[in-house]
């Protein structure tokens, strides 16, 4: 997809605008590319027993060339937001176009019975139950609520085996969605 706009660029632009203006609580867009096909979001889970304030969860969303007929590629990633410390900010403060508050913390892959330690997520919405009526926003909300409602401090039962042979792209994995309880 290098160069050239995505065929559904207009839709992506609408989604992008809506995401940047009516920001979702606890979800911050930390990075996006010009073509609006690659995004990184930071998801915060507050008041949770398992997830601490200093845990930083980053979700990578990559729009495939067949979007929105095809689901986006979504996975958790370890991502370092560039932390601008105060001294730096003072010396060339006016050059910063907007003041972005980067929380202090450790980037992590959230622990969840449906999230593998390599960041892959077993979620029906990202696979066979995707429809073009879903959107970047609906994916973000699903994943945020998936974390919010989780109370199990565990990885999927086959985590070690899966991570060893997992393809780079989680979309190449055929997940079997067997557990509706979490």
């Amino acid at each position, binding site marked *: 997809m290098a160069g050239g706009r995505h065929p559904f660029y207009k839709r992506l632009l609408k989604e992008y605008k809506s995401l940047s203006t009516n920001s979702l609580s606890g979800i911050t867009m930390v990075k996006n590319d010009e073509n609006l096909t690659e995004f990184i979001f930071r998801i915060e889970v507050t008041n949770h027993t398992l997830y601490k304030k200093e845990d930083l969860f980053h979700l990578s969303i990559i729009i495939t060339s067949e979007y929105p*007929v095809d689901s986006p590629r979504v996975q958790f990633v370890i991502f370092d937001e560039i932390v601008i410390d105060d001294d730096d900010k003072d010396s060339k403060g006016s050059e910063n176009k907007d003041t972005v508050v980067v929380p202090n913390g450790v980037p992590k892959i959230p622990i969840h019975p449906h999230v593998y330690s390599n960041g892959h997520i077993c979620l029906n919405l990202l696979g066979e139950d995707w429809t073009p009526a879903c959107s970047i926003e609906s994916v973000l909300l699903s994943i945020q609520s998936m974390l919010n409602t989780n109370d199990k401090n565990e990885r999927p039962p086959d985590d070690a085996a899966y991570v060893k042979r997992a393809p780079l792209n989680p979309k190449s994995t055929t997940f079997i969605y067997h557990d509706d309880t979490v």
Partner: protein
Amino acid sequence: MKVKIVEWHGFSTWHWKLAADGDANSSAYVDELCGICRVAFDGTCPNCKYPGDDCPIVLGSGCTHNFHLHCIVKWLEQDTSKGLCPMCRQIFTYKESYPDMTEELANLKTLIDGHRVMRERYTEDNQEFEAFEEET
């Protein structure tokens, strides 16, 4: 006084009649967007340049969801669509309200029929499928 018309320009506007009860005067639906490309129905799908007959609207008959013909065909071409409406996941069927059966409409019909056959086959083989899933 005599007026001689030297030249005149006619203007007209149009929009798709989408409401089932035919209330074409209600302007509310003008804002409605195709659920797939999120462009107004009176606009075009991303692949077309001019709105109108070249980029027609398909009216869902089972559900009440409408789409640009090109958008819904793109979706139904996917196996993962299972022939379902993207908005409500009911089996997608459409109102055959166009007098001419264009190649594109024929294509839509073929896709819908194809999914129906797949569904019927799946129900027949359902037990085998389940056995297979348990193994993996």
